[in-house]
C-alpha cells in the first residue's frame, strides 16, 4: 500500500473515531423535563410513632431495674408505617405507604421522590400520617404555588419540627 493512501485512510479512521468520541460525550441530548415542566421533590427522613403507645414505668418497676436501664417510659419497638400523599390541584402526584425498616420494624424511612409536573399556578396539598392509631391526615399543608418551567421545588417533611416546608 502506498504511503499517501495509507495516510488518507488513517486520517479517515482517526476522524471517525474522534467523531464517535465527541458525539457520544454530549449527545444525544437527554430530556430530563419537557420545556413546560417543573420538578417537585418530596422528601423526608422520619420515624413513625410507636405502634403501641408508650407507658410510664412505675416507681417499683424502675427500682427493680439496674440503674443504667431505668427508663421513665417503656415502649414496644415497632413503629407505625408512614402514609404520605401529595396532591397538585385535583391530581394526586405522589402517594406512598412507607413501612418501617429493620428486623423489628423499629427504624424510620427516607424518601426522595422526583415528580415531574406542569409549570404554572397550582394548589399544593401535602399530608402525612405517622401513627397507625390515628385515622386520616395528622400533618397537613396547603399552599398556592407558581412554578416556572425548569424550577425545582422541594417539599420536605421536617421530622424534628413535625411540619412540611417548601423551598
Amino acid at each position, binding site marked *: *500500500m502506498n504511503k499517501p493512501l495509507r495516510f488518507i485512510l488513517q486520517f479517515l479512521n482517526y476522524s471517525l*473515531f474522534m467523531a464517535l468520541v*465527541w458525539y457520544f460525550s454530549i449527545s444525544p441530548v*437527554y430530556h430530563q423535563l*419537557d420545556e413546560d415542566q417543573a420538578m417537585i421533590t418530596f422528601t423526608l427522613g422520619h420515624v413513625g410513632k410507636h405502634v403501641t403507645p408508650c407507658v410510664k414505668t412505675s416507681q417499683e418497676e424502675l427500682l427493680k431495674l439496674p440503674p443504667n436501664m431505668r427508663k421513665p417510659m417503656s415502649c414496644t419497638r415497632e413503629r407505625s408505617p408512614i402514609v404520605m400523599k401529595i396532591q397538585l390541584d385535583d391530581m394526586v402526584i405522589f402517594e406512598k405507604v412507607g413501612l418501617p425498616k429493620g428486623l423489628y420494624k423499629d427504624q424510620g424511612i*427516607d424518601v426522595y421522590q422526583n415528580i415531574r409536573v406542569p409549570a404554572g399556578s397550582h394548589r399544593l396539598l401535602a399530608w402525612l400520617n405517622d401513627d397507625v392509631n390515628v385515622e386520616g391526615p395528622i400533618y397537613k399543608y396547603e399552599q398556592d404555588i407558581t412554578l416556572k418551567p*425548569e424550577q*425545582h421545588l422541594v417539599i420536605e417533611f421536617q421530622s424534628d419540627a413535625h411540619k412540611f416546608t417548601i423551598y
Partner: protein
Amino acid sequence: MSFINPVKRGYLALETWFNISFGNVWNPLYNLGTLTFFFFWVVLVSGLYLFIFFDTSLTGAYASVEYMTHDQWYAGGVMRSLHRYASDAAVITIILHMFREFALDRYRGFRWFSWFTGVPTLWFVITLGITGYWLVWDELALYVAIQSSQLMDALPLIPASMTRNFLASQINDRFFTLMAFLHLLGQPVILFFALWIHVKRLSDVSILPPRGLAVGSFIALLVLSLLEPAVSHDIADTQSTPAMLNLDWFYLNIYPLLDYWTAGYVWVLTLGITVFLMMMPWLPKKKMGPAAEVHLDECNGCEQCAKDCPFDAITVQKRTDGARWETEVVVQESLCAACGICVGSCHSSNPFRHSQQDLVTGIDMPQSPINDIRNQTETALSKLQGENKIIVFGCDNAIDFSDLKSPNIAVVSFFCVGMIPPTLVEYALKKGADGVFVTGCRTGDCYFRHGNKWLDERFATKRQPILRKRADRARINIFRAAETDCKQLKRELDQFQHHLTQLKQNETAGVSGVSDE
C-alpha cells in the same frame, strides 16, 4: 474449509480494513489493551495538570474549572478536553477489546483469568468517570450526584439516605471533598491495581502501544480538543432542574433508566450483566489439552522455555535430579495454555538427534510429542510426489490449511507456529522437501500472543534456538493468514511453487540458488 461463525467473520473483516489502513504493526485492533493504557496515561498527565488549578471545595470547584476552560483555554482548557476525550476513547477501546476477545474466542479456557478480572476493571473505569463528572459541580454534576445517590440508597449499605445530602438545606463541602479524594487518588489507585491483576498471568505485557499509533491517537485527541473543547453546563443550582442535559453516554448511560425503573431494578440489570459477563468463560467451558511436561533427562536448565512462555507458566528452580546443571524448569499446570511454544524453544527438540530411536525433548506436549511430529514429517515427505515437494507447517488456530494437501504438498499441524523447532525446518529440507511453507495467525495477532514473534526472531537468528544459516532461506516461506484469508493463502502457495520451480531452473542452468525475496 471449516465453519466460521458470522461474528468472527465480521470481526476479521474489520481487522482486515484496519490492516489495510494502518499495517499490521499499528493496527489498533491488535493493540486495544495497550491503546487503552495509552489513553489512561493521557488522562493521568492531563489530570495532574488540572489538579494544580482545581479548587476541591464545593463553592470554588465550578469557578476553577471555568477559569481553566475559558481564561486558560490554551493550556487548562486543552488539558480538560484531553482528559475528557481520552477517558471517552478508553471506553470505546475497552468495549472493542472485550468484543475482540469474545469474537475470537479468547476468553475461555486458560484465558478465564484475564476475562474474569477484566470485567471489574470496566466498573472501576466507569465509576472513575462518574466521580469525575461530579467534580465539575455544574447542573450535570448535581444530576449525577443525585442519581448516583439514589442508586446507593437502594443498596442495604448505609442506613442514612445519601440522596438527602443534596437538598439545599443539607448540602455541604464534606461530601464533595470525599468525592474529590476518591477521584483524584482512591479510584485511580484501585484501577491500576486491578489492571496489574488483569495482566498478571501474561508475560511481556506492554503498556504502551506502537509509537506510530500513540502519536496518531494523541494528535487526533488534540485536534478534537481544539475543535470542540469540553465545556461545563451552568453552575449547579438546587432551585432548578434543567430540561436538557448533555450526558456523556460512555459513562452516564444507566442514569436515564432511573426515569423508568426503580433503583433496585437498575441494580438487578447492571449486576446481572456483570455476573453474566464474569461467568462467560464457563458458558460453556473450553476444553483444553494437557499441560506441557518436563523431561529432566533432556533439560539442561537453559531457561529458554521459561523466557518464551507467553503465560508465565514456566518457572525456574534449583536442580532436583543431581544432574550437573544448576537449574531446571517446572510447569505450573494451572497456568499452561498448552500452546507448545516451549517445545519450539527447547534445543533438545532438534529432530537430527537420536535418529535411530525415539526423540525425547526437555519439554514436550503429551498430546502431540515432538517424536510424533518428526515421524509425521518423515512419513509425509516420503509420500510426496511431483516436481515441487512442499511441506506445510501450520498452526491450528489460524486458517484451516488441511485443504492444501495434494500429491506434492503435505501438511503437519502445530498448536502454534512458535512450537516449530527451527531445526525441524532444516530437517524437512534435508529429508527431501523442496520448500517449507509455514502458516500461522496474522502478523500482530498470534492466538498464543508471542508465537509469531518468536518464530521470526529465531529465523532471523536473533533468538535461541536459531534457524541455522545453512538452512536455505530461499526455500522457506512464511505466510500469515486468518481463517477468512483462504484465497490469499492459495495464491501465496502458488507463488511459492512458482518460485521453487524457478530456483530449480536456475540451479540446472548453473546459477546459484539465491532467493529473490
